[in-house]
């Protein structure tokens, strides 16, 4: 059924349709509306057979999820940014134990400096923990990916993170098609655990594993994600058959046929990129884009196939490997191993800075002329940076950097562009 609703609420409805049995909630902007929505559904009786637990920290949230999942319940939670870091130990633990927990990440920057706006640094911080990471381009896809996520997680016995841009998607009202319970039930069967805490058949879960077997356990985790490379497209195809729309999959290409320049990105910025691609194509430019949906497992093979004929690849990422440059571009570079083409990393949208059509247009034109640096910080205020560097070279007691910059440009969040 078509609805005009907030992205968070669309996700809450999707999760509710998946018949979750235990949901734990700890508030953090910008995911809070999701768990609030689910909490209300449980409290009002709209969502039955589900225990909703208000926990005292994100660490507790994922820990409660671990216990519930190990006991055989379909389990869900959500977090962002600082919260994901606070539960980091449990994130690795859940993956290591092979528990099919589904968790929404409302992507938000990580402090210091504290910032509530969108970027991908939170999900990226956990990219190697063993969770599957799926990125939604639109609120429709965010809704759909949760349904796919539960099946994927339970098929593989591997936890799944569904990542959606905080505020840009979570707080945007969009038109979405919410499936019926019957459709979801047909797609997602009841949870059949591979391991379960059950008095009638006791097992010990969480043993210490030494050098004699640790590598094998880790290898099997890796192998699981490699299997997911085949399972994810299969699921997307099954989903398309049942729900009659394309959602998920490993990557999505847009006008890449004959493209000399291809832009690669994750999440909602792909919409804006596609608008600019259309504009430039209309003027005869050979440009296209690729949206990566499955960031873990990283789709090396299909990405290579999509990019290998381009002359240059621009990776636009909302995250930063401090001291090195790009994170996503590392993976893209790996997929192009042995192929010679020009690769550019563009760091954009950090801390919620808007990525505009105008800026992208100029960026892509510069790329086409190969007039880009290896690493570009989109819309960087070079004057502001010079000001601060010069100040630091003159004075020892410079005070907090962030505050100094803010004082120079004005108040917090007074400019989004």
């Amino acid at each position, binding site marked *: 059924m078509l609805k*005009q609703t907030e992205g968070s609420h669309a996700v809450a409805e999707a999760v509710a349709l998946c018949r979750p049995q235990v949901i734990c909630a700890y508030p953090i902007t910008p995911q809070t509306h999701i768990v609030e929505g689910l909490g209300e559904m449980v409290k009002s009786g709209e969502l039955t057979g589900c225990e909703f637990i208000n926990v005292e920290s994100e660490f507790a949230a994922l820990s409660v999820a671990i216990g519930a999942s190990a006991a055989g319940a379909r389990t869900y939670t959500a977090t962002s940014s600082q919260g994901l870091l606070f539960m980091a130990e449990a994130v690795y633990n859940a993956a290591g134990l092979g528990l099919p927990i589904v968790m929404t990440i409302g992507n938000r920057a990580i402090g210091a400096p504290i910032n509530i706006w969108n970027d991908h640094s939170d999900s990226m911080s956990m990219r190697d923990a063993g969770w599957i990471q799926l990125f939604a381009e639109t609120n429709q896809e965010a809704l759909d990916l949760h349904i796919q996520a539960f099946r994927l997680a339970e098929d593989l016995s591997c936890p799944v993170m569904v990542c959606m841009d905080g*505020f840009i998607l979570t707080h945007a*009202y969009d038109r979405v098609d919410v499936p019926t319970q019957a459709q979801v039930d047909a797609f997602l069967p009841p949870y059949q655990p591979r391991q379960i805490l059950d008095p009638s058949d006791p097992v010990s879960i969480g043993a210490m594993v030494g050098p004699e077997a640790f590598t094998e356990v880790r290898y099997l985790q890796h192998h699981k994600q490699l299997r997911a490379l085949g399972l994810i497209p299969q699921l997307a195809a099954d989903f398309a058959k049942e729900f009659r729309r394309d959602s998920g999959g490993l990557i999505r290409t847009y006008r890449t046929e004959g493209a000399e320049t291809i832009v690669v990105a994750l999440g909602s910025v792909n919409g804006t990129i596609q608008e600019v691609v259309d504009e430039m194509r209309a003027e005869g430019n050979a440009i296209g884009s690729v949206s990566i949906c499955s960031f873990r497992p990283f789709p090396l093979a299909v990405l290579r196939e999509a990019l290998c004929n381009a002359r240059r690849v621009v990776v636009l990422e909302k995250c930063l490997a401090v001291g090195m440059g790009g994170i996503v571009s590392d993976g893209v570079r790996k997929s192009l191993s042995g192929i010679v083409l020009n690769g550019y990393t563009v760091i954009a949208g950090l801390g919620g800075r808007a*990525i505009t059509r105008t800026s992208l247009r100029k960026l892509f034109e510069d790329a086409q002329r190969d007039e880009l640096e290896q690493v570009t910080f989109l819309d960087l205020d070079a004057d502001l940076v010079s000001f601060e560097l010069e100040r630091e070279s003159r004075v020892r007691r410079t005070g907090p950097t962030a505050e100094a910059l803010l004082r120079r440009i004005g108040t917090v969040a007074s400019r*989004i562009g």
Partner: protein
Amino acid sequence: MSGAELLSVAAFIEGRHAQAFPSFGSERMGAPVMAFCRIDDKEIRLREPVLEPDALIIQDATLLHQVDLFNGLPARGVVLINSAKSLDEMGLGGLAQGFQQYRVYPVPATDLALKHVGRAVPNVPLLAAFAAVTGVIGLASLERAIGEKFPASIAERNVAAARAAFEAAKSAKETISA
């Protein structure tokens, strides 16, 4: 529910695509906030803030002389301002005559809201005026949106406020165009 969100619901009711989102500023009460709404007949892919609005709805006139609200508004752009004063009284007489020729309509939205709803919430009257002036959404769609999103008793009163604002704006528009 913000004005932008309600507008998007009204557009949805007309079978159109609509995207509404806040400018993601401070979350505390009393801080200046901006919200955007895009309406189209096809799927909206763009995810940047609305930098060149076709119309601007100003709910709090005290912002007029604090923030550069008109940044990005194209020539002949529509501006609705929540105020019981006239343009001259607000010190904006020059706007309509200026080279940008903005089409500026003061709407006594707070007064209308107080009168019909009993609370100083100017969203609905402003949207109704917007409907009257631009025709982007119809009054009937706005009324349905109100019915869907507000509890019954409040919805009724908001619909009354909407109708009053719509009529007032329609005649004001005719006056300005004349």
